[in-house]
């Protein structure tokens, strides 16, 4: 009994790391550009298929193809930003959120249908020689693929956090978030800052999707669920805190696992929304966010 409980928590943490990775991407984009990209889940789905096909057609190891999944999403991100999202840059914040949501819904429908046409509605998953291997510690199973995925996710999140804190361009991004006009005055090209943030967000979604396709499975319709997960996690963690958002992902993962364990798998999705509402009511700035003003 206790072992099953611990095992569930471990699985929850492992999945939660991917929630965290994906949500950090969405949160960065929203924090910097105020674009609410509801197609984030579809970007994740695309990353999953990039990895899946690279493995199936060319036998590229899924961990080797991670940079390629990221690169593919960088390209998709640049196209989406330049063609669609960039048009909303000049709008005020409320209008921007609304318009980008509409754009996002459109993009997500198109990508989802396209994926279904091209690759059918079947569940897909990458099965490698090491897919079924796991480490065992005190009778608790640690699937190698998922553990490595968690490490990758954690490293990427830390790298992003360090980039924002320490690099010159990272400081320029933070300055732009605070006051784009002031940033422009000192010579920062805020359009480029927005583009970079959007593209990093897309790349994070791509890598998360690729990791999902190894440890779990992917399907063209997965986007909406992942977007919702990211929104919940973003709210849990609080805007402006990269590490906080990642921890929010872990919390949601564990909460889902515990719910499934206690009352059955059917309630997995509900717990996220419940957490979402509770946090909004009790601590609207998120668990790790800073109150505005």
């Amino acid at each position, binding site marked *: 009994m206790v072992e099953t409980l611990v095992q569930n928590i471990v699985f929850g943490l492992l999945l939660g790391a991917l929630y965290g990775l994906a949500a950090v991407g969405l949160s960065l984009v929203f924090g910097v550009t105020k674009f609410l990209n509801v197609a984030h889940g579809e970007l994740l789905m695309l990353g999953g298929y990039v990895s899946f096909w690279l493995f199936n057609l060319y036998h590229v190891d899924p961990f080797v193809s991670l940079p390629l999944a990221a690169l593919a999403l960088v390209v998709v991100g640049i196209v989406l930003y330049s063609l669609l999202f960039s048009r909303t840059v000049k709008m005020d914040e409320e209008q921007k959120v609304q318009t980008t949501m509409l754009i996002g819904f459109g993009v997500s429908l198109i990508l989802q249908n396209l994926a279904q046409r091209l690759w059918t509605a079947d569940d897909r998953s990458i099965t490698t020689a090491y897919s079924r291997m796991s480490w065992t510690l005190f009778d608790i199973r640690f699937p190698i693929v998922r553990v490595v995925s968690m490490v990758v996710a954690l490293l990427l999140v830390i790298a992003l956090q360090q980039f924002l804190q320490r690099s010159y361009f990272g400081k*320029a991004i933070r*300055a732009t978030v*605070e*006051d784009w*006009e002031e940033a*422009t*005055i*000192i010579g*920062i090209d805020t359009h480029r800052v927005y583009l970079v943030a959007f593209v990093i967000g897309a790349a994070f979604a791509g890598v998360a999707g690729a990791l999902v396709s190894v440890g779990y499975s992917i399907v063209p319709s997965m986007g909406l669920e992942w977007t919702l997960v990211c929104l919940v996690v973003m709210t849990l963690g609080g805007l402006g805190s990269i590490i906080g958002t990642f921890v929010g992902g872990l919390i949601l993962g564990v909460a889902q696992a515990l719910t499934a364990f206690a009352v059955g798998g059917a309630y997995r999705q509900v717990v996220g929304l419940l957490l979402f509402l509770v946090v909004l009511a009790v601590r609207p700035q998120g668990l790790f966010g800073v109150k505005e003003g």
Partner: protein
Amino acid sequence: MLNVEHINVGYKDLQVLWDVSFQVNQGELVALIGPNGAGKTTTLKAIMGLRRPWSGTIYFEGQNLCKVPAHKTAELGIAMVPEGGRVFTGLTVLENLELGAFAPHARKHMAQTLEEMYQLFPRLEERKFQRAGTLSGGERQMLAIARALMSRPKLLMLDEPSFGLAPLLVDRIFAKIKEINQAGMTILLVEQNVRAALELAHRSYVIQNGRIVGMGTSEELLSFEFVRSAYLG
């Protein structure tokens, strides 16, 4: 050096500046004075490229600024200290200063300019690892000025640097501005604090209701009701 020629500027369909023209020559300290809402900030924004004139042109060293993207203005050698000593409050003092040197030509000399700024404003060095949000009003204004100077500008524009500061601090800030000008910097100073500005400036323009209504030295401008009442208190 800076030639503003007949610009009309507005927000949406509200015209704010009407046929505004003035110039600033190399080495000068020119003040643009006028009451609240006259269009002083709008003028500076037009020069920075943050607001495009509906008509008219702005030349800086012969180059038409209206054709330059806003973020390239700093690169050309124009720096602006925004109203109210606006700085990046979530960043440290040092990070603010580093970002001031964002333009490529300035970034190359960042370390050296930083030293110069610490000499000009020793207080900033003491506080360099502090978040700018924790600074006092006067310190913020100094940081805003230093951040602007980090871009090694040819023209420094200040938007009401005295705003909200106690008289003693105003004196200190204005002494710094004078010092910076005497070291060779061309300055365009926007002020509501007429008395302090006129004492400092070589020449001043008076702006009212979006129109330039006068230009001259402090004595010459005393014929303006707005200037006189400001002097008499």
